[in-house]
């Protein structure tokens, strides 16, 4: 029946076991190659720390640039600055020569003559939002933003960044509008903490909705930012009409 019947000297390792060992070694070789390449490709904890360190340095480098961007006023599609009419009236009423002063301060900014720019005055002219607009904004917030940024506006560290006391939120509304329209991909640093996830673009919100919710966010959770108008949102939407890809902080000069 069998052609492997044992005869003569028995080997140290019987033939069947030798074949078994061979098959196991083959499998182990396959496993080691695959497993090692996985572990080599996978980012270990040390590399993670190194990456974090590099990120920190980059963040320090970009801090000034980011600050400059945040204090810059909103712009129209053609590059001119815009501030709410009420603010402009208030500024001019306060100091009739404000336009000339600002023109001198803004310096290289393109076509600043069309409207008075805000940077110097932003701190001085806080405008309380219309309570109706706040109410509408709260409603939009409750159905759109609340899942990630939470009812408290504190977000969910380390996944979702806070809106409370976040400079980006109260600064130039252009950035938040862009994030709402096209989303934000990749790392962003808020109050010293780096969040590396994705904010999806928010579909189905009108310009008025965005203006309302931003106004709400800019004047809630301890934030003190001026209201945003639907016209501002409309201009930013028009300026980025062709864009579908999410924004990245690298592209916007933040880190």
């Amino acid at each position, binding site marked *: *029946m*069998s*052609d*492997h019947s044992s005869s003569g000297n028995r080997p140290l390792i*019987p*033939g*069947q*076991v030798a*074949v*078994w060992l*061979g*098959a*196991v070694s*083959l*499998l182990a070789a*396959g*496993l080691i190659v*695959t*497993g090692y390449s*996985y*572990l080599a490709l*996978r*980012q270990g904890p040390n590399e993670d720390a190194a990456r974090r360190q590099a990120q920190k340095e980059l963040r320090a480098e970009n801090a000034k640039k980011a600050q400059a961007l945040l204090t810059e006023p909103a712009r129209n599609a053609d590059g001119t600055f815009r501030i709410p009419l009420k603010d402009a009236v208030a500024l001019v009423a306060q100091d009739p020569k404000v336009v000339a002063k600002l023109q001198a301060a803004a310096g290289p900014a393109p076509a600043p003559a069309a409207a008075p720019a805000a940077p110097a005055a932003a701190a001085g002219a806080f405008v309380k939002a219309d309570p109706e607009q706040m109410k509408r904004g709260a409603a939009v917030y409750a159905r759109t933003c609340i899942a990630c940024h939470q009812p408290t506006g504190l977000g969910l560290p380390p996944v979702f960044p806070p809106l409370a006391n976040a400079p980006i939120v109260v600064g130039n509304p252009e950035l938040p509008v862009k994030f709402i329209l096209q989303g934000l991909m990749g790392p962003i640093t808020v109050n010293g903490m780096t969040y590396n996830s994705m904010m999806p673009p928010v579909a189905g919100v009108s310009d008025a909705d965005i203006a309302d919710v931003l106004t709400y966010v800019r004047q809630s959770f301890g934030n003190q930012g001026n209201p945003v108008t639907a016209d501002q949102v409309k201009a930013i939407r028009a300026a980025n009409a062709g864009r579908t890809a999410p924004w990245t902080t690298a592209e916007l000069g933040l880190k």
Partner: protein
Amino acid sequence: MTQDNRSGRPQGRPPEGDVRVSRVEASLRGPFLLFFVSAVIWLLVASVLGVIAALGLGSSVGVLRECSWFTPGRVAAAQQDLFVYGWGFNAFFALNLWLLSQLGRFEFRNGWLAQLGGVAWNLALTYGVARVFAGEMSGYRLLDFPREVGPVLAVAFLLAGFWPIVAFARRPTGHTFASQWFVVGASFAFPLVYLLAQLLVLWQPASGVVQAVAHSWFVANLLQLWFGASALAAIYYFLPKVLERTLTGYYLAPVAFWTFFLFAGWTGPAALVGSPVPLWLQSTGVVAAAMMIIPAIIIAINVHGTLSTQGGWGRAWNDTTLRFVSFGAVAFTLAGVLGGVFAFRAPSAVARFTSFATGLEQLLVYGCATMVVFGASYFVLPRLTGTLWPSAKLVHAHFWATALGFLLALVAWLVGGWQTGQLLANPAVAYADVLRAESSWFFLLTVSSVLLLVGHVAFALNAFGMILKAPAPASRHD
């Protein structure tokens, strides 16, 4: 001993009056019976747990609710683990070893090594299931066991499940048969997939969604490459063997083998359609699942073509082994076709998050693999023990209870799952109503689990009665 085929008497038996067992089979007796008996015991435990889980879902049995060990989440997980790792693996350890020893004229001289592996496997499994009952699960389906169980199971697999490869390597002739390809493929694929999944999911977890991708990859490989391939090996063996004819279009079988092993490993991400994994990965899974139609069709040509000539279906129906095996073959074809069709995005959008996926899985694991193992044991056990099955009535009870029980459950999973999916997609229907509609199917599942338990008890009674009354292995030492 002279009953005709219609009596339900198993046909696979030694020649009249000869209780001697061939040397190949005598050498397999120890390991085979260890694997087989532990498989049947685990099957019984899993069936009882299945009834408990079904009762827990369908109605409120207060007594069980009181005990945290019997909360539905733990019972269902333990049931699935025991069915897959206890029954499925032990049964195919036995069957694959027997198949390749037969095909390779392999006299197994190191049975104790395989038995050691079997004991280690069952001990590790017992420990793992105890931890699952204690609530210490990993949370990944079919990788529920705490991670220290993984390496033990892998080593036990190498000891218990690698001997078919040895039998293949030491076959006397160069000629090979389809069954051998599938068993060798399955025996190599499982430990590799299992250890890599352990590494990627539990030991050195990949970040974020990659973990989910690795897990879905593991589940697809486990179901297709272990259960599917092992069952196919048995189908390819028993069909021509019992019918005593060649397979229709057998020249296509190599294509079936290679396409099966090529595409099965890629089907995992098809289960992730709609989740936050890259779109190309989901599409790859969908394409692979659709390509699985190719091996399914070729195997259908091989198997159903053979059954359809010269009254093959009638003979299969009247032969105990073939009745189960051809049930499994039909289930495999159905699983391949349904799996391909429902992997596409539109149907998948309706069927996901419902019991539909369970139905497709069970079509492969129970409808195909388990039924094939039942059929095979009706063929193998009489040869190995040198006796006949004690009761034909129990054989009938076994077939009808398992076949009906499985079909009932299949209808509940597939139809109920599809209905649930459509209700979920309809915003006008309240979620409570969806749940109410879904729970109406639980009655069917409860009936089915009881039927399956009855069938398995009948099978176990018959098998254990047979093993106990078997004469001592006469030809082993002469």
